[in-house]
């Protein structure tokens, strides 16, 4: 449908007639994918910071077990009561407040849950996906705008339920983000019930989102935007959406069953003959704790790729843009991504090697686990080689992306020793695992997300974030991330377990008088806890420039001089800034692949996807009125 100028204007009046949206309609109950994307982004960032704050408190307990929490100690006590009990000096007067073991476990479980389900997924998938995908495929909006809004609202409800659970009697869920039964189900407090119900809302939100994304990408691609012309970011989101769509429901089923165990006293995950606090539990029994683990990890593993694929997508866009050349091996990128998506459904039991797994099963899952590492290698390799022959601009987004590569490399490579069950035998449940995946999700995914924020910010707001403070943010974050997670490998190798309330003090190494050899964890490795914690707090401090930069630039940042400040090729830059409701003034037509940079014989070093083959480039439409 080619608009003539006339009905184009008509279209506008029409638009206005329909939504004269007030503040609420515009910012809160909006159905515009861009607004929803931004809502998701801000909410998720806040949750991300909250999840980080929980961990900063835990890091105190890990570094200084049993010492009074500084600054916020009494605040915690006032909010959470005896979960943060007071400690007294000799004279019996309260000298401060500490974190009880239950509180530590609750914070640990909620840190994991919040970071994964309320932080990264909403930011990487929902926020960036919502804002960027329709623009990049040349669509006016998502396929189902109202479903889109519902998805966000369901996400908020889920988040609120999770937050409320901190304040109910007994506190929040404390059985780890993995919520293994029976631990999660036994016990009389309701934190776990809240967790389950919260998860049901979050799952619903993700399912609605996934359906919407897939339908949008399949149905709403602009004319000429065929599959092999999609920007890699869209591919990444496409596969991610399928992972969510098909991997989440089994967890939802598991959640329903655990809810029944909790409120209707069924025994889905509770075996016969449980003995709780000295007496036979009054349950029918006959259930299986392993079933929960299978259903959880059936989601759990695809979920980890949900955390990484969008990040890879962002990195790909930014690398192409800042090397000013096409991505090397676009096709193999796409196929590797599809392969990862496919395989990630059949590796899950590598999280369960030590549940007493027979040879057949462990062989199967080890093999698939090793196979799935190959596509990741291919993807990363493509990114590396893309650097070759480029003309690399080191702006803030690019710095974060470049850092992503080795950081993901470390995280990914350390997945391998975990992938062999015979070495996992020793590394399982140690800080080596913690370091493994944090290298991927923190200096990996989070960096990619920072990059994405710096990169698309001008499109969303019409202003740049400060380059200088961006670089400060990058270098310091990079430093402290590594100071936090590198030592964890060392601790893990020394046998320090995760989820330890006292940071391992109980297992501190002692020289056995009889033999003289030291058993337990040598003190040096425990001392690393202090260093890690200080680095973690420092990491928080260096986020302040970012937070200020983020809000300050909305009003005062450097104005963009064109709609395409990075001189990029993809469609989101061929719209007015910020894009109006309906995105494109005239429906774009796509003539070429996503990364046509430095095409030989072209004047400028980038050729937008919608620039007609011959003749003058389509005039880039200026701002809507």
């Amino acid at each position, binding site marked *: 449908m080619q608009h003539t100028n006339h009905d184009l204007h008509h279209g506008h009046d029409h638009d206005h007639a329909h939504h004269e949206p007030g503040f609420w309609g515009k910012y809160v109950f909006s159905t515009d994918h861009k607004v929803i994307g931004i809502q998701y982004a801000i909410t998720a960032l806040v949750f991300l910071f909250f999840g980080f704050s929980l961990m900063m408190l835990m890091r105190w307990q890990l570094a200084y077990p049993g010492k009074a929490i500084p600054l916020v100690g009494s605040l915690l006590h006032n909010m959470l009561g005896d979960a943060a009990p007071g400690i007294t000096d000799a004279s019996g007067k309260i000298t401060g407040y500490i974190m009880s073991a239950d509180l530590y476990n609750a914070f640990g479980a909620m840190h994991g849950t919040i970071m994964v389900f309320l932080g990264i997924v909403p930011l990487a998938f929902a926020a960036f996906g919502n804002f960027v995908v329709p623009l990049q495929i040349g*669509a006016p909006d998502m396929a189902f705008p109202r479903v889109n809004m519902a998805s966000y609202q369901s996400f908020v409800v889920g988040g609120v339920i999770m937050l409320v659970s901190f304040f109910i009697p007994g506190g929040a869920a404390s059985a780890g983000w993995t919520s293994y039964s029976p631990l999660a189900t036994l016990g009389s407090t309701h934190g776990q019930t809240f967790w389950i119900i919260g998860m049901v809302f979050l799952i619903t939100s993700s399912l609605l989102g996934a*359906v919407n994304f897939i339908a949008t990408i399949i149905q*709403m691609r602009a004319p000429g935007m065929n599959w092999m012309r999609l920007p890699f970011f869209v591919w990444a989101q496409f596969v991610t959406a399928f992972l969510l769509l098909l991997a989440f429901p089994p967890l939802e089923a598991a959640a329903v069953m655990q809810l029944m165990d909790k409120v*209707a006293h069924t025994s889905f995950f509770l075996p016969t003959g449980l003995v709780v606090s000295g007496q036979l539990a009054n349950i029918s029994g006959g259930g299986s704790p392993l079933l929960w683990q299978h259903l959880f990890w059936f989601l759990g593993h695809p979920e980890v790729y949900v955390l990484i694929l969008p990040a890879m997508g962002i990195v790909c866009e930014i690398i192409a843009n800042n090397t000013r050349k096409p991505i090397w091996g676009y096709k193999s990128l796409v196929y590797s991504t599809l392969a990862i998506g496919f395989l990630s459904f059949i590796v899950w039991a590598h999280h369960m090697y030590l549940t007493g797994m027979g040879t057949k099963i462990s062989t199967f899952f080890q093999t698939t686990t090793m196979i799935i590492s190959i596509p990741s290698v291919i993807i990363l390799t493509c990114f590396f080689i893309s650097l070759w022959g480029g003309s690399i601009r080191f702006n803030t987004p690019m710095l974060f992306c470049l850092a992503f590569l080795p950081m993901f490399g470390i995280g990914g490579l350390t997945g391998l020793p975990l992938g062999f069950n015979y070495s996992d035998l020793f590394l399982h449940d140690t800080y080596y695992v913690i370091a493994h995946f944090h290298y991927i999700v923190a200096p990996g995914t989070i960096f990619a997300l920072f990059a994405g924020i710096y990169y698309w910010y001008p499109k969303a707001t019409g202003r740049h974030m400060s380059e200088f403070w961006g670089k400060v943010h990058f270098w310091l974050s990079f430093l402290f991330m590594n100071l936090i997670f590198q030592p964890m490998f060392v601790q893990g190798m020394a046998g320090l377990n995760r989820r330890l309330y006292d940071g391992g003090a109980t297992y501190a190494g002692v020289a056995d008088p009889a033999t003289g050899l030291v058993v337990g964890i040598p003190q040096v490795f425990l001392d690393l806890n202090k260093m890690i914690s200080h680095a973690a707090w420092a990491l928080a401090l260096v986020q302040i420039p970012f937070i200020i930069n983020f809000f300050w630039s909305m009003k005062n940042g450097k104005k963009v001089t064109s709609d395409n400040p990075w001189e990029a090729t993809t469609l989101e830059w061929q719209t007015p800034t910020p894009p109006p409701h309906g995105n494109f003034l005239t429906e774009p037509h796509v003539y070429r692949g996503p990364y046509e940079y430095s095409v030989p014989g072209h004047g400028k070093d980038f050729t937008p996807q919608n620039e007609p083959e011959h003749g003058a480039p389509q005039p880039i439409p200026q701002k809507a009125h």
Partner: protein
Amino acid sequence: MEIPYTVKPRPDTGLYNAKVGIWLFLASEVMLFGALFSAYILLRVGASAGTWPHGLLNVTLGTINTIVLITSSITVVMAWVSLKLNQFGKFKMYQAITLLCALAFLGIKSVEYKDKFSHYQIIKKDGTYVDGHMHGATYLDKEGKSREEHKFHGLSFKENNVEYSLKEVVLNGIEAAQLSEINEPHKDKEHKHEHKNISVPAAEIQKINNYGPWHNTYMAIYFTLTGLHALHVIGGALVIGFLWGPGAKMWRTEPERFTNRIEVSGLFWHFVDLVWIFLFPVLYLL
């Protein structure tokens, strides 16, 4: 720009948006019920001998409900056809039947549920079982004045601060030495259990509970699966009801789009029917 393909199919996929959407959603539903069915198989295979009830549910009611759902499915299809043939009146009629079927289904299901809650099993101190429907329970107050109840109120209960304690319960059912006699009646043909009233003094009761989800893993999965399915029935009925009532306005403004909505809601409804097609034999017959 307006959102394309809300009514007309996109040429290269041949589908309109909502159709793609609903099928994706149904795909996730398959995984949801798939996981529960896997759990069912697992619990059943894992159940120790004699503990998995057979022929516990009322097959007649189950059959009727199956037929009710199938009927609702055909009426949904016919409703859509009527719109295609531009017969709005018929559409109204068919969907009305659909909604009545939905109500009938839920009604029958709740009857079945209720029955399970009045079905009790007693484990006596001597390790034998009494199993049957609650016929009545006798309670005693402090002065030993006895009081008859049709319902079971637990081993003791309080009413306007008088304390009543159980004297005996009367179940209409069977006595059994092993669970298997209760759960696998088809297996042992020799001693035929005919139902009779059996009264059990409170003193002999080791454990008493009714056939709620907590009773055993079979009841757990039964209530979970059928409950979740019932929720889907309710959801589907709400949508169909909306498109039948207020939503029907759209027929006048955008008939094609309305027809699509009916098709999409129908697809969901058929899926709900489809799930039941498996639930019925799995829970009632096997």
